[in-house]
């Protein structure tokens, strides 16, 4: 199990879908997970400290878990099958460290609850190996060729009448 932290929630402007990016706490790998809009919103609102006038579904889930004195130890992104991520909510009943309850959840719900309960988020090593991505490191000055589009654009500009604008 590898501990992850929530790096960002990104919105695709084209499709309205949202992606949660988890980042390895001790490493560079990122795990992008597509989530539904309501779940993405539930995560973002909480992270931005926005308190909705009425409890959102995940706020209700959190207050139910707290009222029942459940001790949520962590959430785990446990599996990836057929492009679907699976997650588990791992908790102990009130005053019972011995008994461990694991609940099947979607990663989006697990993460929305983890940020509210302040519990750690883990990912299974195998899942990270399969779906984790490492950011590409850029070193030194950019290649001339990479800037080709910009040079072409600049050379197409007619700058001769730049100061004649009045």
């Amino acid at each position: 199990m590898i501990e992850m932290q929530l790096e960002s929630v990104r919105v695709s402007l084209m499709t309205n879908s949202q992606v949660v990016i988890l980042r390895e706490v001790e490493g560079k790998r990122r795990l992008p997970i597509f989530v539904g809009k309501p779940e993405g919103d539930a995560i973002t609102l909480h992270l931005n400290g926005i308190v909705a006038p009425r409890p959102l579904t995940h706020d209700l889930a959190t207050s139910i878990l707290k009222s029942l004195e459940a001790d949520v130890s962590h959430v785990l992104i446990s599996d990836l099958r057929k492009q679907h991520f699976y997650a588990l909510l791992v908790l102990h009943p009130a005053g019972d460290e011995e008994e461990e309850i694991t609940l099947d959840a979607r990663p989006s719900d697990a993460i929305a609850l983890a940020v509210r309960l302040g519990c750690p988020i883990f990912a299974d090593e195998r899942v990270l190996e399969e779906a984790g991505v490492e950011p590409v490191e850029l070193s030194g000055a950019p290649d001339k060729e990479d800037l080709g589009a910009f040079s072409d654009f600049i050379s197409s500009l007619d700058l001769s009448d730049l100061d004649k604008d009045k």
Partner: protein
Amino acid sequence: MVEVKVDSVRVNLVGSHRVVILKDLNSERYLPIWIGQAEAESITLQLTNTKLPRPLTHDLIVDAIRALGATVRYVLVNDLRDETFYARVVLRTRDGKDLSIDSRPSDAIAIAVRVDCPIYVDDDVMAQHAHKPEEESAEEQQEEDLGAFKDFLSTLDLDDLDKK
């Protein structure tokens, strides 16, 4: 407290609004409550017994309540202030203690239909905001319903129907 059941979940075709209609079990009174799209879907999927491959948020909540040895006694739509409905989810813990938890009606109803517990509405809320269907004579209603068809029929030119 008035016991109600979910009569229907309706969709406004313009915009993403949904409305859940609660019906008084003992009389012809209906209480409409505007709810969000996600919650409406969650209620509808459960009422139509649609099994999804992955648990929805309300499924997870119900799983957690059960796994912790608690039960949902009932849910209650207890107030309406500034055009916002308020509800409570009433749980009984493993030790027999009752807990009342603040909720939106949509979430409370989505939980209630999953555990099959009673749904109640406060007497005053029901008295002030429930609708009774308008009484209309059956014949009058029928005439009105057929108006569009009559209008359409009268626009048809049937003269050349057999000239083929």
